[in-house]
């Protein structure tokens, strides 16, 4: 029993996409640019050459926010989307009927369709791959060159993520929607 979350020291991100490939390889995700559980959001730089705004060019690693109040879970008519014992938002492919309500309900665009099962797929924090064999890091975290990601149990006050969230400022995405996301962007 845990409540898993992830902190992102996003200013260290160089948009190398190691995380995206590691996720695909670990979790057996389909190839294809539109098939992905995680991604790096890039905002094109503002200004005219040579007067460009360095600060405007940002790289935000993103994925399912594993919200504590997840809209995707609320709208699912078959209870295919559920919280597992570690607070991770999961999809049961046997129950999913691909009604796509969850895809539309997710404010973070974190879900896509797996063409093999014709069900919805998304980030699982590597629950059924790495965590299930006792590893304590996710694939995206483990491979990251600049060590952007800190994954762990938010309920454990001694976990690295709990400590860093006590020590550093952070923001969450679209928190005004009341989703209570568990991805934290460190400032």
């Amino acid at each position: 029993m845990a409540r898993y979350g992830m902190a992102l020291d996003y200013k260290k991100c160089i948009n190398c996409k190691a995380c995206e490939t590691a996720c695909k390889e670990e979790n057996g995700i389909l190839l294809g640019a539109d098939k992905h559980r995680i991604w790096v959001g890039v905002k094109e730089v503002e200004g005219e050459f040579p007067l460009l705004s360095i600060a405007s060019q940002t790289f935000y690693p993103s994925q399912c926010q594993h919200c504590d109040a997840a809209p995707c879970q609320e709208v699912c008519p078959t209870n295919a989307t559920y919280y597992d014992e570690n607070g991770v938002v999961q999809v049961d492919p046997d129950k999913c009927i691909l009604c796509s309500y969850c895809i539309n309900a997710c404010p973070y665009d974190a879900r896509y369709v797996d063409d093999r099962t014709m069900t919805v797929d998304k980030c699982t924090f590597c629950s059924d791959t790495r965590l299930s064999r006792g590893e304590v890091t996710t694939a995206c975290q483990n491979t990251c060159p600049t060590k952007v990601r800190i994954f762990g149990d938010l309920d454990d006050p001694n976990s690295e993520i709990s400590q860093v969230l006590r020590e550093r400022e952070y923001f969450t995405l679209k928190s005004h929607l009341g989703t209570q996301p568990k991805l934290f962007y460190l400032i």
Partner: protein
Amino acid sequence: MHIEISRRRFLQGSVALTVLGTTATTALFSKDKTGEIKITTKTTNKADKLVPTMCEMCVNKCAAIARVEDGVVTKLDPNPYFPKSRSMLCARGNAGIQALYDPDRLKYPLIRVGKKGEGKFKRVTWDEAFEYIKEKTVQILDEEEDNRSSFLFCAGEGMAEHTFKTFYQVFGSSNWLNHSSICLQTVAAGYGLTLGSYPQSDFENATYVILAGANRAEAIVTPDTMDLFKNVKSKKNAAKLVCIDPRFTNTAAKSDLWLPITPGTDLAFVLALTYVVLDEELYNKEYVEANFNDFDEYKEHILSNNYTPKWASKITGIEENTIYSIAREFMEHAPKAIYYPGRRSTFAKNDFQLRRAMAIFQALGGGVDCEGGLVFGKTLKIKGHDVSSPMYDNAKSRAVIKRLQAKSGQAGYEDCAIVGDGGSWISWRNSFLEDKQPYKVRGMFCYKHNPMQNMPNSKKTAQMLEKMEFLVCIDTMPSDTVMYADVVLPECTYLERTDPIKTFGGTEPSIAVRHKVIDPMFESKPVMEILQGLSQKLSKPLFEITKKYDEDVQEMLETDDESEVYAEFDLSVPFMHSQEELNKDAVRDYPEALAMLEKHGVYYPDMDKYFKQISANEYEYYPKSKRYYSVNEGRPITSSNKVECKIDSLARNGIDPMPLWKDEYIPKSTTGKFKLTTGRHAQYTQSGSTNNSMLNDLMPENYLWLNKRVAKEKNIKFGDMLEVSSNVGAIRIKAYPTEKIAQDQVFLIHGFGQESSSLTWAYKNGGNDNAIIEDIMEPVYGAAAMHETEVEIKRV
């Protein structure tokens, strides 16, 4: 704060998603429920084995752990024990699985049946391939009267390059070409002659960094990329990063200051920084007094030439005041300030002098062989694989064109002043094509090297390969160069072979090994085994040729037994032992090394004591007090232990003994034309990785960057097909209008637009930069100057 983070929305208008949903269906193994073959494999709880190995998706050699389930490599993870790669694998490193299971791989030995370049081959057995090579080699060497240099040997960089080079040495040719003249030749030599070595940078402890023409966020170098970007922007007391690049790169996005310099003018910028430091006497006087040769002369040279920031601002486009403030800030932070040496090919003709000027500027602050500065580090010695090469009386010296009647103070060769070990590729190719070489070179052995893509003016390379009578290629992929081969010998990929053990010098030195993860697939073999078979086939027949023409050998045979004489000419001797045996021998001085290398893939003395996990995802390799920041008491490691400001031996070869600016260095700027620059990308290495199906998802083709306002004037929109032409060729490539580049420049990423139709993903995927880059050489080593070309563009 408005934050746009949806990748899908972003992609709609961007470079990365022009090919949507190209689901690859060509994997060799894993099948999903519907029976459709997919290329990624989900990991499970059962692993047959975890094998420590080393990546070869680029030149960095990061340590990996391969997960093998039911004989299939299902995942490559970073190996935490290796100091150099800091427990990471980049996108390419992760995608190594797709290189292993690439359906386009060379699977069997092949002999050409079609025209050169056409790509028509027949499958043969290894013995048939070797037999054919033997016949052709014997014929050529007989006709050329045992001139072993009538064969050219060339190789790309890699852990097994040395194995192939050994074959070249025992074969007895003098014609060796490797990547250096299209790679690090000028930077390595510039720093080598000035400071004694091409140094590393201690980015962990530097507080001020200038990155000029070095895009470390996209052209990943380990550990530089990780150390640098952990040390800027996101933490308290972050280092200040000044990024100098004509383009706004991902590195620029992480910098504190981005200065878009006019391409090819970095030398003027460095000379002006030096001017400020000397004029205002900001340099470390104690350090300079103790550790410089010819400082006074250099000072006088810089000041009397008036290399002022005002002068430089006109040439570089960087404001005068900015140059002053950078020079002052750098020296305030010195010795913990780094002017990064860079790790790239030659861009402009003045590159050698630029590197000398950079090295001297760095040393003026004392930031040499010290924490936070440039470091030489320590290298753990391993035993080499010593091979004695036979002496062939008729082997002619390297086919280079000497300048007749060269006097002292003039370059001794037609194309350059100095010929390095790796030679000048362009010079060699062009003189071969122009029939200028002193004797006929008729055969070529090419290992893991793709001259069709890697060197400017690919039209000439095609002509060279057509003209070469006999070409043998050893490779893993059907590259553009392989299309011209007479015989193709399939090497297995890096995950299927054990390679020579390697020592990695630095502040945290270690020894690491690439272990074989799975057995070679199809009929592919490690280059060691290929050369074992080939040398056994060639050795005796070639000795017969030597006996026929070599008077020294004939003389020896008068007194000695033939088997004794032959023993010296037995080409197969270096390849007698397995790589595993040789590796054991290489570390025989370290009693614990073998066991550690077997278990962890990495070894260094006291590793069991020093190696520490400091968080779930970070590790310490050496305690700080044990790192080799300083190995020569802060001095350069030149033979004089001084910084060499003035090198008289250069002057004797017609090279300026001190860095200086010449008007001819002012870049050409023709109205209506654009300066062409090229570069690297974090998801691709070079042409070797563009056929990777996983990486192809991230960027299916390259684009031509051009300024948005220029594009608008020309009515060019994102994705429009353009023809880009120079004096040597034309390519077709799609447009990417952006404000990240100046109005008079265009840019494209290297390694795309291959012509080999055997490459499912890379075939004609964008434009090949080397089809339009002119074959211009810098004058010192004849290295290819990649950014001296102007192009025209039109919509087609």
